[in-house]
């Protein structure tokens, strides 16, 4: 594109202005401005019920730095990003490998669809159902293991030791289906000719995958990393209702991420904490971590959009 010509700039000026200004205006008024207000509230001690607020400057932030519970939820959030990310992207890549090798396009579409279905369903319903699946005594998982004679593998999935992985398994089940669709479509755009010439050289399907496919879908992999990082910090519905959280109890500390903790602190589930200023400070920090993470991912993952 010729960026230098004045004529070009003139022509596009109108389009740029019309396209961007209203939307940026809306975005600013309805999202950025409330966010700034939230930043303002984070400097106060505030219950959220009345306009009475007590100015305490950066105290909320200082307390957060010392708050064991908050730090634990931050640690959990990071665990979800990295452990979850590795598992999800790993499984998605493996599935991409086999599904892209299916001979029947129809089979591929059906499998894709089944994998995706959990994404269409309400998080609250799914978390509750997962609860039933993982119940130690009655759950689908343990009952099945026992029926298959694998009873020794049946564990207390919702207990302190495993519940994080229990929650993670739900998230993995849902998100692999989400990202697989992106990955498969990316594979679609790779010209067959590249594979054909590799075959002539005697490459196995695994080689073809690792040496041709993966490098060429790197941009999609990066996009999925960015999206997962943002999503995992923000996940709320699934974790809020997971496990004991279903009824009138707070979700177990082991599975809480920052988004859940923000809600519990600012509004409370049944324990009336109502520290909205403190919760706002948490939210600002959450955004900061998300921005940092996104920045690091874009910097560290080497991407080059390859054109054909």
């Amino acid at each position: 594109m010729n960026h230098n010509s004045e004529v070009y700039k003139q022509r596009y000026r109108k389009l740029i202005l019309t396209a961007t200004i209203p939307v940026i205006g809306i975005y600013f008024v309805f999202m950025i401005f409330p966010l700034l207000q939230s930043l303002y509230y984070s400097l106060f001690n505030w219950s959220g019920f009345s306009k009475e607020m007590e100015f305490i400057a950066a105290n909320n932030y200082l307390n957060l730095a010392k708050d064991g519970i908050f730090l634990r939820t931050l640690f959990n959030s990071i665990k979800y990003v990295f452990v979850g990310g590795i598992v999800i992207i790993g499984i998605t890549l493996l599935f991409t490998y086999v599904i892209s090798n299916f001979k029947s396009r129809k089979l591929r579409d059906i499998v894709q669809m089944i994998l995706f279905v959990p994404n269409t369903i309400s998080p609250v319903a799914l978390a509750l159902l997962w609860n039933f699946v993982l119940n130690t005594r009655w759950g689908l998982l343990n009952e099945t293991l026992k029926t298959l004679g694998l009873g020794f593998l049946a564990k207390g999935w919702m207990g302190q030791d495993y519940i994080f992985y229990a929650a993670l398994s739900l998230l993995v089940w849902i998100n692999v289906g989400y990202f697989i669709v992106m990955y498969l479509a990316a594979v679609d755009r790779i010209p067959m000719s590249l594979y054909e010439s590799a075959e002539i050289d005697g490459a196995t399907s695994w080689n073809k995958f690792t040496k041709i496919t993966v490098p060429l879908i790197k941009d999609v992999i990066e996009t999925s990393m960015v999206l997962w990082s943002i999503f995992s910090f923000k996940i709320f519905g699934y974790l809020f209702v997971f496990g004991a959280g279903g009824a009138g109890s707070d979700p177990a500390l082991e599975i809480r991420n920052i988004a859940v903790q923000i809600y519990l602190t600012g509004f409370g589930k049944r324990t009336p904490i109502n520290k909205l200023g403190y919760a706002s400070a948490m939210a600002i920090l959450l955004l900061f971590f998300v921005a940092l993470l996104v920045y690091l991912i874009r910097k560290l993952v080497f991407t080059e959009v390859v054109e054909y």
Partner: protein
Amino acid sequence: MFKKISVLVIVVLVGLLTLSNMVYAEEGELVYWSMWEKGEPQQKVLEEAFNDFSEEFDVEVDLNWVGRDNLTTLKTRTLSEQNVDLVDKKAEEIYGALVANDMVKDLSNVLEMKVPNEDNTVGEVLIEESYNAYQKEDGTVHMLPYNFITSAFWYDKALFRDLSIEVPETWDEFLVMTEKMKENDLEPVAFGLQTGVYVGYFPYLTSVRILGEGALNRAAGDPSGKLFEDPAWERVGEVLYSFSKEGDNLLMENYESSVYPGPQMDWVMGIAGTFYCGSWIPIETKSAAGPDFEYGSFQFPTFEGGKGDPTAVESYPIGMSILKNSDNVELAEKFIAFFSQEKYAEKWVEVTKNMSPRKGVEPAPELQDAYQSLMKAEKTFRLYDGVQADYPTWYSNVFLPISRDVLSGNINGKEFAEQMRIQTIKHWKQN
């Protein structure tokens, strides 16, 4: 083109403004922000009462069946100065959220009001024990109940008869009961360690029995942690430790990984012998109970030398509060008095199968035992000894984690007392 788009944007915005159908309560309209969802039995009784009220006194009522998150969305209403008159929730939450932030008014004057269509005042028809735990020393009370819940150990009477198990009153008798259950392949106490509601019970109840009502509350609020130095706390810890698998193993097999509704299901299906829970449990498990299941309950056992009143029961009222800034304070007060009528209390018991705080209204047979213990009670204490309302962060960040630790057997009785002391000091330093 730019002009065209700007015009479009303006038209859309204007359209939005004119077409919006804002629901603002009108003058003299009584606004109720309910914790119940449409379709729940409680909602039906309340709706009927409000409609009757509306007819009898010729007032408009605006009923909002918000659900259990009503206190969350209440904030948006109060901040934007939309009128809300009546709100309800369990007393612990009302006190923790609304009373603590000075949002609701004192209702002691309502106690003096006459109940419409009857001869007595509200104070005369309500069982005092249903709300006096929440009454301050100066007599002010910020919520008046229409539902009364207490907690207890629930059991199947038929099962106890079959196995000739006696209902225990003291801790020693309780241990005898658990032994007998174990002999008969029953897991004594259903429990879920990952469910906060249950975890809080045994620690607070043990402290109430051994150290007296209000002791936990005082100790929680003491930044010096000195109140936890009382050796009785070690005893509390030891009792809790004995529940755990490292102690006397009184809890059901998978208690560490059991989450709602696991424990109550295991109990009602006959795997566990007892279950400690609030008096909502019969109705919640009725559909899963076998045909021969007979609901019965007994109170948390007493301890030798314990300072707590042996007849004391937990007070878990659910009731209404009136917002201070309400436009219709008098109407709201009138409704509270109106709802205290006998006919509504009877309907409440019949439809919701919960207990009514009104004198002389017999509850469902499943709740008879619980009701009797309320009648006998000379004292009542707040749910969680009031720490959930008064010190919610402490409850959540100190009390529950340490309770979980001792109930899982990770720490023993002595460590329990130590941890409570240390963590309380730490907590107050940061808050």
